[in-house]
């Protein structure tokens, strides 16, 4: 089996068939990451010291718990330090970048393209927002995927694409291990006529 055989129709079909299982794995991973939670930075226009807040998903995936922290936590954040909560069912929409209220309000921030790419907000009630600025691009993707998964939407980040490729290409290689050095046909061979009788013969050779 050669590299170009990975393009043949039977192989592409198998790839398509496995894909949903792999997407499910990515979804589980993202939700696990949200359950671990992330420490977010608060930005203020005044040049005060950075303040932190922490947000994580409850193990049953129904509530987001969050609360302020004095400093960037080194160990796991105890449950009672996160007093606020937002039920996932109350989330109406996720907005990103310049659509976020905290990116509109603070005029000075508009210039900062880096922050725009890390900002997202959750709309709940009719005009209440929970505003986030992810610590980096990777964490941003994890949260966007996780929130999309929670809300039953497709995960669209580049991170999902690259994870999918990593997992799927390994899975394909393993499924096709026994086809090493065997020519795979371009298209499935024709299926023979249905056997006239089901008297199959045991053949020792």
């Amino acid at each position, binding site marked *: 089996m050669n590299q170009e055989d990975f393009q043949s129709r*039977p*192989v592409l*079909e*198998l790839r398509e*068939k496995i894909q949903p299982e792999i997407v499910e*794995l990515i979804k*589980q*991973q993202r939700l*696990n*990451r949200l359950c*671990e939670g992330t420490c977010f930075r608060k930005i203020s226009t005044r040049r005060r010291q950075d303040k932190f807040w922490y947000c994580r998903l409850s193990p049953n995936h129904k509530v987001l718990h969050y609360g302020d922290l004095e400093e960037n936590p080194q160990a796991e954040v105890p449950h009672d330090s996160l007093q606020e909560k937002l039920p996932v069912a109350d989330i109406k929409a996720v907005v990103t970048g310049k659509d976020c209220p905290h990116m509109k309000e603070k005029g000075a921030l508009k210039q900062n393209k880096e922050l725009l790419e890390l900002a997202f907000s959750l709309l709940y009630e009719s005009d209440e927002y929970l505003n986030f600025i992810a610590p980096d691009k990777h964490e941003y993707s994890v949260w966007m995927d996780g929130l999309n998964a929670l809300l039953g939407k497709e995960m669209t980040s580049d991170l999902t694409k690259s*994870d999918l490729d*990593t*997992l799927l290409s*390994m*899975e394909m*290689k*393993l*499924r*096709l*291990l*026994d*086809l*090493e*050095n*065997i*020519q*795979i*046909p371009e298209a*499935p*061979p*024709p*299926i*023979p*006529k*249905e*056997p*006239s*009788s*089901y*008297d*199959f*013969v*045991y*053949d*020792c050779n």
Partner: protein
Amino acid sequence: MSFISSFRGTVSQGLVLEIGETVQILEKSEGWYRGFSTKRPAIKGIFPASYVYLKKAVITNRGQYETAVPLEDPIITEVTSTLQEWAVLWKQLYVKHKVDLFYKLRHVMTELIDLRRQMLSAQLMQEQLREVKRHITVRLDWGNEHLGLDLVPRKEYVMVDPDQFSISDLYRMHLSSRHSVQQSMSQGDSGKQRHGDTCRGLVPHHLFVSLKSFTYNTIGEDTDILICLYDNREAKPISEKFLVRLNKNGAPKNPERVDRLCALFTDLSNKDLRRDLYILAHDGAQDR
């Protein structure tokens, strides 16, 4: 025995098969085979002969319950089954976000797939073949160790049947596998890793305990004493308990059964010996 295209089982009694699956053929008729996928041996059905690439195999237990083992180097078979076993755990590493091991294992799996391909395709010289086998087994042992799986005893790189060797032979094989894993690791990695490995040394120790007499100020009635190994730092027992029955004088209840007063704590690792270890005697009724 290998499936080269997907078959949706469109005829009656048809067996649904994916490309790459391995099938065992039981019977044949007019361009069709009847058999099963080795992944699901319980489900039997028919599939077109043109979809199957035949491989040589050794059949044992001929007849209704025969099993076929592909005629190939046993290392190839081992790599195939090991990779399939690892794949499940590898995906769990991803879900649990164990990033470091996830990427290391992916690298080793890719190397194994390439080495396996080399063994299958190229016309290797005897010497090269040995070298490829050595590379393969070092990687298999590395992965099994890091995934917490059993180390495979092997001789001349080939897995052996544990039932055909004595315990001490198996032990020596394990030791040499470990040596080669450690050597290959210490070549590439830092000293820190080597240190970590020695901490988890496999060399087991045994502790033999024989109770001669037992006194305690409140003994005045028959008592059951439970004895176990206890780690004072972690404040928990690390062994099973063994029971001694004493009479009211603190002497064994059945003095004629001396063997009842002895216990052997087996397979203590170096790590266990480095614990803050105590032998704890525990009254059956209350803590003392």
